[in-house]
């Protein structure tokens, strides 16, 4: 079967150089021009330069499309929150209720004892807290602030490490998934 080639008017310019369509086809590795046009591309410095530039443009567009698609995938996955697993939640609640069943009969007594205990312990805890606050000097405040700052910094670091990996994995999966 004879291979289909680009029509002549899409291959040759009036000045004897190759038309943009032929340049793009050659840059994209498409075997769609005649041997005559191939030979011209081999010999002509100007057309070869255009083929190089077109190949670079083709690569840039491909990279932008792949990356843009990956970002779109990530964005769409963020826009659509996962549905609440109602069944699983209800099952877990039912299981918890079943587990509590044996102690339900002791519940009134437990509630009374807990209330009494809380009433006795609360003033002691309150006095202790007030005493501790009065005893803190400025150096302790600095230590507490530094520790808080460290915790916040660690949390930020963990978040920043997790976020790019999600983008990268989406990027990789989009490349592997859609590019043949």
């Amino acid at each position, binding site marked *: 079967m004879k291979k*289909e*080639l*680009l*029509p002549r008017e*899409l291959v040759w310019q009036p000045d004897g150089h190759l038309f*943009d*369509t032929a*340049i*793009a*086809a*050659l*840059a*994209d*590795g*498409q*075997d*769609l*021009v005649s041997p005559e046009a*191939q*030979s011209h*591309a*081999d010999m002509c*410095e100007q057309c*070869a*330069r255009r*083929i*190089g*530039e*077109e*190949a*670079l*443009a*083709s*690569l*840039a*567009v*491909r*990279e*932008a*499309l*792949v*990356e*843009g*698609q990956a*970002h779109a995938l990530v964005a769409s996955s963020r826009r659509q929150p996962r549905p609440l697993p109602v069944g699983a939640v209800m099952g877990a609640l039912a299981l918890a209720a079943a587990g509590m069943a044996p102690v339900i009969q002791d519940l009134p007594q437990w509630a009374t004892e807990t209330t009494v205990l809380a009433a006795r312990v609360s003033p002691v805890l309150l006095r202790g807290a007030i005493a501790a606050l009065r005893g803190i000097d400025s150096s302790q405040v600095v230590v507490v602030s530094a520790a808080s700052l460290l915790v916040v910094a660690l949390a930020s670091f963990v978040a920043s490490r997790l976020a790019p990996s999600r983008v990268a994995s989406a990027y990789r999966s989009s*490349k*592997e998934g*859609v*590019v*043949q």
Partner: protein
Amino acid sequence: MFAYRTTTAQNPAALVEDRTHDEQAAILRPIVRAVVAAMLGESRDHPDVEDCTHEALRRAIEGRARLREGEPMRPWVVGIARHVALDARRSRQRTRARTVAEREDDSSPAIERAVDPSPGPFDQMADAELRRRVFLAVGQLPEGPRTAMTLFHLDGLAYEEIARRLGVPLGTVATWVTRGRKTVALALREVTS
């Protein structure tokens, strides 16, 4: 005679798997040389172009195992050629900067005169912004060119397969791809100017 055509278009299997390294290099050499020459702004027979071409092909063939399954070979090799040519360009800039500094007999420390070869944060941000704009520009193309470009660049289909799928002549697909890329380039030029 060397030929820009390949038997593969976007299909790497036909290109690499059943061929010797020499055959692969012979097939890829023309496009790699054209890309390097375009990047360096030199003719194809310039020694630097020849060196970079050789280096890019060597890296491509040696690093072929890193090509992910299903990833098209051609853009990957063009990417390597671009990288190698970019390194050569930066090396030229460094040499030029060193020569100028030596001529001016600069007494500042060498570390201050050194040119960082890696792209800086602003370059990286600019690249990312450029890619975002290319993506948006492609999205604004008419349906035909947009579909053709997506099928070619993302789905990796050859022009002929795209023509069959869309039910249009081969020349129309080639024109859509060409015009699509031109429109994107024009849009970017307008943004950057």
